[in-house]
């Protein structure tokens, strides 16, 4: 056996102490991370119970006004002009309710892992224009103008799930209109680059502080909460948009708009119906587990 002198022993001791110091450091970082995650989960749980208590109002209020308004027509208390006006109001209330319910169902499906794509060749310009038309009344209520910019012209077709893409655009658009200052502009830009589809939706609202930008994609999170809460909704829209974009082989980011407001930009890769990657077999390695016999 090799003889060990004092110097070697000291050296070894030093090395081990150093390793120990690093391990303790790592442990400390991990503990801090754990504490942060723990806090976040606690918050998420409390937001979930807030959601359950808020949902009552968010669903009851529009339903009550729909019933009240239609009752006037049923009771023949409204002439033709008033009836037309009522029909408009009922439509808007029903539109909001439908939008919110769809979001709740979408979040539930995503959380259950039950969303499956049906990929098709999508006419992107038509899809975006449809959404702009659908949200037109919301924008005009706030005197917000919606601008559609598409330098590549109207011929963009893209292989993706049309329903998912529509949901993402609808949520980003609804969010932009909700937070845009009155009388200002929301801009939707669509362009293709290196085979990817990019959509950017910019508003001219108060903007979002850099520190809060990651938080807005968490579920049930709305930056103004409690008694100060001025905006409708449950804080589900952006979390749904992010989850769907990620399932569509894409990413979504949030930046400040020049001057004021913010820009949500998503970038999607085309989806394939069957195999998303090149599946060449590595050196003929093919295994069959439990074929024929029971498991």
């Amino acid at each position, binding site marked *: 056996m090799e003889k060990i002198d004092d110097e070697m022993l000291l050296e070894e001791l030093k090395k081990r102490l150093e390793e120990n110091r690093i391990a303790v450091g790592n442990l400390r970082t991990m503990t801090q991370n754990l504490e942060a995650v723990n806090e976040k989960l606690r918050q998420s749980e409390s937001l979930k119970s807030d959601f359950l208590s808020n949902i009552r109002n968010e669903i009851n209020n529009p339903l009550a006004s729909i019933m009240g308004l239609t009752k006037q027509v049923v009771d023949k208390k409204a002439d033709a002009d008033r009836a037309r006006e009522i029909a408009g109001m009922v439509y808007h209330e029903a539109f909001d309710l439908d939008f919110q319910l769809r979001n709740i169902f979408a979040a539930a499906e995503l959380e259950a892992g039950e969303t499956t794509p049906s990929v098709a060749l999508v006419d992107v310009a038509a899809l975006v224009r449809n959404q702009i038309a659908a949200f037109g009344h919301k924008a005009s209520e706030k005197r917000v103008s919606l601008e559609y910019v598409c330098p590549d012209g109207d011929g963009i077709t893209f292989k993706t799930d049309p329903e998912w893409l529509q949901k993402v655009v609808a949520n980003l658009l609804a969010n932009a209109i909700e937070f845009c200052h009155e009388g200002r502009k929301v801009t939707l830009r669509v362009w293709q680059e290196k085979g990817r589809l990019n959509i950017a939706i910019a508003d001219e609202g108060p903007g979002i502080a850099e520190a809060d930008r990651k938080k807005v994609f968490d579920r049930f999170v709305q930056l103004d909460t409690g008694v100060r809460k001025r905006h409708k909704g449950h804080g589900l829209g952006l979390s749904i948009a*992010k989850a769907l974009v990620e399932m569509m082989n894409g990413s979504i980011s949030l930046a400040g708009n020049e001057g004021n407001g913010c820009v949500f930009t998503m970038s999607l890769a085309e989806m394939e119906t069957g195999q998303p990657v090149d599946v060449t077999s590595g050196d003929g390695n093919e295994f069959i587990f439990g074929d024929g016999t029971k*498991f």
Partner: protein
Amino acid sequence: MLYHPDENSHYLLAGSLFVHEERHFVTTVLGSCVSVCLWDCVRSRGGINHYMLPFWNGEGLASPKYGNIAITKLIEKLQQLGSEKRNLRAKVFGGGIVLNVTNPFMNIGERNIQLAEDMLHSENIPIIGADTGGKFGRKLIFNTESGSVFLKKLTKQIDDIRL
């Protein structure tokens, strides 16, 4: 024959799961992600998940993109279809090593595998087959009726697969 193209087939995306009473051939492609296949040996039916990260940390939606949610949900779904936990058997795949990791203690693939082993152990579900780790991706086809799995190792580097 293991797979016939005319039969019910399903492509499983990362972050989702699939359970069915009838025979389906479920295809998925894994890099550092892990799939747990659960199969009921009495009722001859099964399900599969595909998760990307071990734990949900409160960010985004609490979806089966995260292992702790994906495994719990998969067990629950099979139970909803009438399966009993004691009849469930598991196979675990994926968890390849992502190249260029900065911290070897934080390797996602390994942590994904570890989570599957720990959770299945605490649920008392035996793991009767596994092919995990390594520096390559995997494509697998799971037969929900027989529980058999056809696995192909991919030459493509995991960094490129992003699953």
